[in-house]
């Protein structure tokens, strides 16, 4: 990754989200519209790790600057913010409130923070692995009139201009824009570092500012949440190469996909 010019101080915002661990077994809560949280381990959204790693690498390349992790949510997000601080973020902001099912309402809250922040870059995750909304980043950019590219798998910044790559069906799209800009980060961008023991100790002393906020009117409402139908149990058609004719027969006559 090419970097900012050395000694130009950079300020980078990383909006992060606390999500259930990807191995968590999802069960529906009694209200019929949310997930049971008891017994679930919560982690930093995996795509936000790519964003954070990219931000840290850019700051290190520039030689000076600040990486700010920002989370909008209840008090439990402070634990996730500490994880980001342990990975190397310099400070954290807890936008204290209840996120909405309407991504635009959440984007408005984040945009309000970004607007006054003096950031060169805002790096989101491509998607949150709980709500799969894939919208908070580009909405925030649109609200602020900032250039935006989503799901980037490559990023370089030189002289105030960013060049990115993003995967599309059948190829890789390239794009450029000037800073400040908003990107959402995909797998392939980098390999996120793990928090070191030293980082974990240091994180306890780093600044974490709490700002009460509230999401405005929601135009999306969760009607229900349910578990998808189970796949009917399949059959083992046989063992080894000898089973190939039986498989072919099933694919041709029963499944009709050949």
């Amino acid at each position: 990754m090419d970097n900012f010019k050395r000694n130009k101080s950079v300020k980078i915002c990383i909006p992060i989200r606390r999500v259930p661990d990807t191995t968590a077994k999802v069960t529906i809560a009694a209200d019929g519209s949310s997930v049971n949280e008891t017994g679930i381990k919560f982690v930093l959204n995996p795509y936000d790790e790519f964003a954070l790693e990219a931000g840290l690498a850019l700051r290190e390349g520039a030689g000076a600057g600040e990486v700010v992790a920002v989370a909008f949510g209840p008090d439990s997000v402070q634990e996730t913010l500490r994880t980001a601080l342990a990975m190397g973020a310099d400070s954290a902001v807890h936008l204290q409130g209840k996120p909405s099912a309407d991504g635009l309402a959440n984007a408005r809250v984040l945009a309000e923070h970004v607007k006054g922040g003096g950031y060169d870059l805002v790096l989101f995750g491509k998607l949150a692995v709980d709500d799969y909304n894939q919208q908070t980043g580009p909405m925030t950019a649109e609200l602020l009139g900032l250039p935006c590219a989503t799901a980037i798998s490559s990023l370089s910044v030189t002289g105030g201009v960013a060049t990115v790559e993003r995967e599309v069906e059948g190829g890789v799209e390239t794009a450029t824009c000037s800073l400040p800009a908003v990107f959402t980060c995909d797998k392939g961008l980098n390999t996120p570092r793990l928090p070191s023991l030293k980082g974990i100790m240091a994180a306890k002393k780093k600044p974490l500012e709490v700002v009460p906020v509230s999401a405005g009117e929601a135009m999306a409402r969760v009607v229900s949440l349910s578990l998808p139908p189970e796949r009917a149990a399949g059959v083992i058609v046989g063992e080894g190469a000898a089973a190939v004719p039986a498989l072919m027969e099933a694919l041709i006559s029963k499944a009709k996909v050949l």
Partner: protein
Amino acid sequence: MSSILVVLEQRDGALRKGAVDAIAAARLIADASGGQVDALVASDRAVSGVDGLGTMGADRVLSVTDAAFAHYNPDGIVATVTDIAGQYSAVLVAATATGKDLAPRLAASIGGPCGMDVTAVEPTGDKITVTRPIYAGKALQVLELSGTPVIAVRPGTYPAAAAGKAGAQEALAAPTFTRRLEVTGIRTSAKASVDVAEARVIVAGGRGLGDPKHFAVLEDLAAAFGGEAAVGASRAVVDAGWIEHGAQVGQTGKTVAPELYFAIGVSGAIQHLAGMRTSKVIVAINRDKDAPIFKVADYGIVGDLFEVVPALAEAVRKAKAH
């Protein structure tokens, strides 16, 4: 009466996949109240296939032709749609890489909610209810959208062509806008002829291959399907650098739903299943009879992939030759 705008995607003058689904979904919403369906295409040249949009269910095709639309131009499309959004009760796109990029920008610009990657739409009074898989497909969310929502419809959801309509064509002037992001081009992948996200058949391999060069075994099976199969992979082999990350299927890779999915030397970790469990037919080949992949597979063969897959490739070639 609610009319629906469908924003279509084109590349190099050809319509992209997903138009059928988005138009069919729009038709469903519009017909509930006697509204009409308009399809918008922005391009730098004539787009082939546009004359067929009527038979897919569009009443009108709005074309914006301008050099600014040679490549995907999100700022330009957002400006175009925002100008006319007041005439519509919802805006639909196909949930492709580009559609997923565009939908939230449109929603923020119009000031409506965004229903991302939906697998069903239903008009409910003056609102629209959508169904969407979340938590990597571990749960289905039903969401009620009010205002002027922007909805990204997952390709493959409404494949049936809707009733034929006239499909009158109309040209629209290009809007004035500030181009904040400049897409400079697309590098098409050198070897992958079929993209995992678009293939009818996926032949996916995992750590059971043992060595990157053994992907040749899978490529041969894919080739037996003659241009309709793509090679996919588990994260374990992508992270090991055996194959490019665009091939990864799963939670942090692609979500796919081909007609036929082969999981070969793939154990079936929950994050892998998240990306492929809605495939129509799943075939697993694994030497461990207790591998979790067999729990979601319709058909399984327990055995050494190096023995089974070549025999299978040969059988597919024979079947195809008939």
